[in-house]
């Protein structure tokens, strides 16, 4: 085949051009591939060092460059923060020592633009440019600054040992585009990292707030659950409903006998037992809107149907824009019971004061009646007309006096003479008397604990108490056969035990007590009766005057003791008495012996605010041949003492007087004339008053009412003034 040499040359030239074009196209395709691969890697990689290393690797592989590094200024040195060395095993950077880079002029780093250096340029710019293992001596180096990245003088370096600057130079535009991509992505990564940091901070804050909320919620939940009142949160926005219960605490559930789940499914109206007269829930909510808080007493119904009083405090609250009534409920049953008990005690107290006052006045009057009757009887001969009537009148007066004694006992202001008392002995001695009165069908049983401590008490009053209770028991048994048991025990009361003695008054203190129980097998009492038995003048007996148990209560109260009663209708009654154990029993004072000091006339100063009493005393004394000086008040009495002084043989002083009063009058008499004996007389004896006067040598005590005979015997038992001086 012949060929035109010119044509051949032309073909060869065209082939060369095509090959060159192909070569350029291949280069171009490769660069586009590289940018694509870099972009792909940037999207995938989050770690900046790994990202830079991957980019270096891609550039090095596709452009057949053996070495690439990202240099950063760290302190005064340059450090390769990311490296790709095609002939160095992975992880071997540290083994042979790191590559070393040191510029001669730190101020000239990083270069302001991308550039390619030959070996000479490198030596001028770098004091050290050492690439280790296997060593690589750069023939050409390309530097592409990574502007604005962390402001750390960051710059990419590519080193080729074989190709010269002329071969790297054409790659610069492409390398700059790669670096642009990297920079943009690093900025993005930095922003993401910052955002992540902020998100992390936010998460921490949210977590902290959540913890705070949870702590707060816990605190309120504890408060909600442990408050002693029942709490209901009631929906106030739900129109036409009956107060749907949104939430409740355990106390509210227990109060109404429901479980929490049951209560939370109910409405407020269904708990109410107040009846139709109570306004509707909606109306009450409306009222709350104007008043903020409403406090009212309501009747609520438990699950078992029982009704109980509650105090309800309702407040209108907003929870996240929704309106609720926050209701606090307190069971008033106990409070009502305590109030009733207090009311009862107060009533008994006032009755006691009333009874005491009446008894006192009656005793004064009875003293006059008895005195005048005795005088009349004395003045009549043994066979005088009307004598029998006078004797009957005297008898009735004595019975009236006995009644006033009961009244005084109830009032707690009866004659009060304290001494060490053995309860067991008292009961045994009285049993002898009682057994005579006990019918055959009733058995009296004594169960007395040995070694019972002594109590300090008024013996005669305790005797009255035991007699009253035993006789009550016998009467309760009625016509049937039965048993009355009297028991004694030593007991120690704690704080809690004291609370079990509701009828003992407010002063029962923890400590040692003697317990007396009087139990009968009689008819027992209904609650309605039981609750009233201690009221004065209340009696279920046809002939009862209603003072027996009131007197018992008064006496026990006067002894700071406790009194309780258990009774079941048809099954008998048990009275329980507690008496405080006396720590040091005072020796019982011997009653003044009424030894006659001769029948010579005595001068007696009588001080009493009641004229009729003064008169009867005067009459009684004068009838016996004595002289009475009368004083209508303490002040007048003192005047008489100052005038007649030593001429007075005896002073008869009433304790209860208006004005100066018996006690003060006595003190002043003692100061003025300490030698004149004073006998105190009273319709009732106040324990404190007697105790105050005890140290001041009281010559005697005369309980009203008294007979003229008793008065005269007492007067004559005192020495006359002249004898006294002697």
């Amino acid at each position, binding site marked *: 085949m012949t060929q035109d040499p010119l044509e051949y040359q032309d073909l060869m030239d065209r082939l060369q051009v095509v090959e060159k074009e192909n070569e350029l196209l*291949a280069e171009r395709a490769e660069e586009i*591939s590289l940018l694509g691969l870099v972009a792909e890697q940037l999207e995938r990689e989050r770690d900046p060092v790994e990202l830079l290393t991957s980019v270096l*690797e891609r550039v090095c*592989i*596709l452009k*057949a460059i053996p070495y690439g590094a990202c240099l950063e200024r760290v302190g005064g040195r340059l450090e390769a923060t990311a490296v790709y060395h095609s002939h160095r*095993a*992975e992880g071997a950077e540290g083994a042979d020592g790191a590559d070393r880079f040191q510029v001669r002029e730190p101020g000239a780093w990083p270069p302001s633009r991308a550039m390619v250096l030959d070996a000479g340029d490198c030596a001028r710019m770098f004091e050290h440019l050492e690439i280790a293992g*296997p060593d690589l001596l750069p023939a050409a180096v390309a530097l592409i600054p990574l502007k604005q990245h962390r402001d750390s003088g960051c710059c990419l370096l590519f080193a080729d040992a*074989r190709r010269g600057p002329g071969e790297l130079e054409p790659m610069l535009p492409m390398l700059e585009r790669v670096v642009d991509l990297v920079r943009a992505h690093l900025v993005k990564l930095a922003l993401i990292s910052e955002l992540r940091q902020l998100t992390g901070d936010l998460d921490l804050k949210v977590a902290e707030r959540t913890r705070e909320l949870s702590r707060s919620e816990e605190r309120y939940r504890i408060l909600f659950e442990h408050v002693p009142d029942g709490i209901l949160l009631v929906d106030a926005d739900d129109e036409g409903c009956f107060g749907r219960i949104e939430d409740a605490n355990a106390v509210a559930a227990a109060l109404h006998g429901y479980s929490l789940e049951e209560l939370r499914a109910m409405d407020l109206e269904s708990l109410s037992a107040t009846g139709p007269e109570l306004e509707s829930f909606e109306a009450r909510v409306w009222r709350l809107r104007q008043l903020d808080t409403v406090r009212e007493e309501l009747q609520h119904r438990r699950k078992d149907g029982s009704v109980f009083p509650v105090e309800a405090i309702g407040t209108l609250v907003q929870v996240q824009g929704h309106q609720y009534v926050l209701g606090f409920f307190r069971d008033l049953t106990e409070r009502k019971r305590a109030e009733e008990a207090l009311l009862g005690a107060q009533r008994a107290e006032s009755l006691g004061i009333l009874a005491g006052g009446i008894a006192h006045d009656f005793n004064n009057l009875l003293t006059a009646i008895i005195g005048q009757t005795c005088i009349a009887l004395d003045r009549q001969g043994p066979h005088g007309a009307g004598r029998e009537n006078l004797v009957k009148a005297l008898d009735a007066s004595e019975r009236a006096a006995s009644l006033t004694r009961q009244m005084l006992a109830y009032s707690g202001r009866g004659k009060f003479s304290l001494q060490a008392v053995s309860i067991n002995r008292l009961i045994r001695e009285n049993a002898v008397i009682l057994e005579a009165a006990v019918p055959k069908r009733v058995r009296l049983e004594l169960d007395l604990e040995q070694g019972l401590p002594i109590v300090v008490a008024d013996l005669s009053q305790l005797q009255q108490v035991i007699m009253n209770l035993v006789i009550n028991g016998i009467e309760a048994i009625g016509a049937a056969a039965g048993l009355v048991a009297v028991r004694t025990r030593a007991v120690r009361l704690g704080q809690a035990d004291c609370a079990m003695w509701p009828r003992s008054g407010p002063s029962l203190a923890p400590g040692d007590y003697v317990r007396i129980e009087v139990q009968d097998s009689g008819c027992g009492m209904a609650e309605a009766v039981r609750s009233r038995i201690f009221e004065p003048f209340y009696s279920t007996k046809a002939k009862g005057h209603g003072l027996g148990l009131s007197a018992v209560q008064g006496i026990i109260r006067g002894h700071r003791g406790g009194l309780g009663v258990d009774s079941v209708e048809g099954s008998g009654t048990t009275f329980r008495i507690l008496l405080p154990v006396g720590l040091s029993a005072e020796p019982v004072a011997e009653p003044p012996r009424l030894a006659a000091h001769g029948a010579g006339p005595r001068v007696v100063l009588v001080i009493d605010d009641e004229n009729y009493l003064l008169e009867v005393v005067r009459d009684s004394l004068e009838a016996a041949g004595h002289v009475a000086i009368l004083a209508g008040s303490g002040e007048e009495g003192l005047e008489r003492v100052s005038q007649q002084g030593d001429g007075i043989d005896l002073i008869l002083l009433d304790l209860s007087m208006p004005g100066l009063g018996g006690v003060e009058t006595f003190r002043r008499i003692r100061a003025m004339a300490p030698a004149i004996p004073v006998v105190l007389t009273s319709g009732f004896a106040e324990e404190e008053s007697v105790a105050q006067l005890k140290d001041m040598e009281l010559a005697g005590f005369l309980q009203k009412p008294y007979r003229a005979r008793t008065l005269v015997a007492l007067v004559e038992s005192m020495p006359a003034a002249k004898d006294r001086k002697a």
Partner: protein
Amino acid sequence: MRNQPPQRWSSDGHELAYHRFGQGAPVLLVHGITTYSFIWQRLLPDLARNHEVVAVDLLGCGDSDKPLDVSYGIASQVERLEAFTRGLGWDRFSIVGHDIGGGIVQRFAVDHPDRLDHAVVMNGVAYDFWPVQPIILMRTPIIRQLAMASLDLGALRMIVRRGLFHKERATEELMAAFWKPMQTRAGRKAFLHFAGSLDNRDLTSIADGLRRSRVPFLIIRGMDDVYLSAEIAHKLHREIPGSRLLEIPEAGHFLQEDQPGRLVRELETFFGA
């Protein structure tokens, strides 16, 4: 095969990974570039029925170590395999090599003829197919392709698809096996180091040796191999005395994937001869 962890053999501080199957006359399977022992997976079950078969990962490939300070060139791989087969306790054995592995087979047959019963070259490189070492650093199209393939699964898939007659066999599973070493920077460096270590002088220097070889050779060529020309196989057949040439239709460069059954039958026939 890939589900089982490979066994390892150590020499000079480097470890080779290999898989060993079956019993009988020993056969060593040697892969080429871009692949590793997985390329034999379709042949192994049948081949191991009558032979003790070892599929090795060459140094720098698959699960073997990937040092960068030693050559992955053909001559050094031959010496490493010679020691390795002794380590396996083998005296004489048959060797099958594909691609670069085919070059290793030729060099092994020339350098250690006494150790081989049979030598099989499948789509193997030979003579001056590969550029001389200084030139290889120049940016030849094949180096560019391999570089791209190390970074881009798409480029690798293109190479694999071009190497198959049955394109549909470039499944995701097969691509995952090809791509596995490229997923680490160490794997990519070793791959490129393998390519950079190749030097046609390792093969041109044995041309005379091949002409004098007495080892029974089977030269197999996939008739649709677009990477290696038919001339390579024909020249080997011409120059190696007594060698057989088998040209298989409908088989590309990766003929183990295209014609595994045919290959096993041909190998059994050849080893039985």
